[in-house]
């Protein structure tokens, strides 16, 4: 047992061994880093999920447009044909077709019921436009439509897209704020643990100063220890978080947040940055605490 302890001690560089192993500050750092990393995984997953949903909704709406033709019944067919001809000649339009009466019935059914007398109502004719990936010049198309079919109005879905994108952006912002709060809280916890460790080792620090240790040397011994603990704790927290995400039950609704919650493809690598960030935070927080405390000892 003693031989094993000796071997373990010898594996640590001499400069790091000058700080005695401490109990509760080590556990506090490990536990807080692990907990915060676990929460960070979920905040990151939330951020990425909302990003993906926003992109998808925005993309789906952005790739379609609708032309609404309001014209007297006698002119409806002619204006519809004119609109289709304009769309056919418009760059960026992949396809365009006028909705049939049955499709109109399906669209209006949820609001007016299944027995809607469609033929007797002065409804506008809708033309569905599917855009090519390059997209269309909406303003140019509007001008051409107004010249060829005065009753045609182009709706490129911008007014639907904007609130969805805004909502998703706010969710993403919330997730980012959560990540920032987690980072700050981790730093605060590590500062507290580091200060406790420094205070408990003030006699050690005095001896080190007495024999000619520079502040950087003393700070490095503490920084190394807390950085390693934060790294190990955060790695454990990330592993637990990823396992929890992995076993999360899948939601059936395709467009729900739950269905998209988690990471996709290369995004699974993103949580690996959390331990590195925790290590960086621990390094900075411990170094600042140590150097501040050391200034009080000559």
């Amino acid at each position, binding site marked *: 047992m003693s031989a094993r302890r000796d071997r373990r001690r010898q594996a640590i560089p*001499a400069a790091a061994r000058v700080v005695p192993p401490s109990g509760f500050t080590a556990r506090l750092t490990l536990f807080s880093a692990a907990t915060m990393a676990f929460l960070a995984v979920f905040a990151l997953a939330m951020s990425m999920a909302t990003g993906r949903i926003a992109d998808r909704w925005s993309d789906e709406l952005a790739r379609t447009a609708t032309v609404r033709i309001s014209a007297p019944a006698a002119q409806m067919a002619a204006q519809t044909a004119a609109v289709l001809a304009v769309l056919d000649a418009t760059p960026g339009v992949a396809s365009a077709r006028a909705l049939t009466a049955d499709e109109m019935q399906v669209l209006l059914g949820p609001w007016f019921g299944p027995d809607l007398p469609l033929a007797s109502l002065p409804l506008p004719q809708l033309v569905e436009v599917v855009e090519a990936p390059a997209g269309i010049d909406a303003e140019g198309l509007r001008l051409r439509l107004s010249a060829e079919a005065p009753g045609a109005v182009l709706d490129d879905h911008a007014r639907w897209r904007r609130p969805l994108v805004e909502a998703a952006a706010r969710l993403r912002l919330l997730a980012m704020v959560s990540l920032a709060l987690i980072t700050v809280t981790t730093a605060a916890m590590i500062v507290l643990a580091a200060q406790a460790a420094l205070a408990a080792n003030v*006699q*050690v620090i005095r001896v080190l100063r007495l*024999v000619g240790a*520079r502040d950087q040397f003393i700070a490095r011994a503490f920084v190394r220890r807390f950085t390693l603990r934060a790294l190990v704790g955060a790695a454990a927290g990330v592993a637990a978080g990823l396992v929890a995400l992995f076993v999360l039950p899948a939601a059936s609704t395709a467009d729900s947040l739950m269905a998209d919650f988690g990471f996709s493809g290369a995004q699974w690598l993103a949580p690996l940055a959390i331990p590195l960030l925790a290590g960086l935070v621990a390094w900075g927080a411990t170094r600042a605490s140590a150097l501040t405390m050391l200034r009080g000892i000559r």
Partner: protein
Amino acid sequence: MGRGRQGQGARVIELQSVAMNYGGGELFADVSLKLAPGSFQFLTGPSGAGKTTLLKLCYGELVPSAGQVQLFGQEVREMRRDDTARMRRRVGVVHQDCSFLDHLPLAENVALPLTVAGRAADAAELSELLAWVGLAPHAQALPPQLSGGERQRAALARAVIMAPDVILADEPTGNVDWEMSLRLLTLLVELNRMGKAVLIATHDLNLIRAAKSQVSARVLRFQNKRLQVAGADL
């Protein structure tokens, strides 16, 4: 061990008209002191006279309330913290309380000045040093396992491992019997013969008398808040 830095200036430590105040009261004033290479001096006086404080001024742990302290030619108030650290590698201090890092074995504690300077201890030289202070069998013992005398000798070994120019010892024989006191004194006299400046704070007049039979020592005494050269009564 014998790598002294003699010839780097006539004085390694110099205090000029130094005063020290604690909590509004004057501890001592108008104290001047010069530690030249190869000198051997005792600092004596009643408890609370300021012996330990004076030693702390000599290695920059305290700055004086008035006057000047020059350590290796540099005014202590103008030293940056790294300068202070580097200066302390040239001053070996044996503290009254012999503080060690209790979690490290004796050998690592003795080699600590080398470790903090980024140098590896030569195992043979370290063994030789421990043997010189009679602690070779205790190399792997932890400091709390050592007796008072062993701790004093370990502190002396730690103080000299960097081959410092000055040895400052604060009551180095305070916790040991007379036989051990003489042994420690002999070690300090040996170091002085290697060219080190030695300043020992003590109230043990027998130790001073014993030293004077071995080496030419000057005795300084705190009296009425002033430092005076002691006369023949010592």
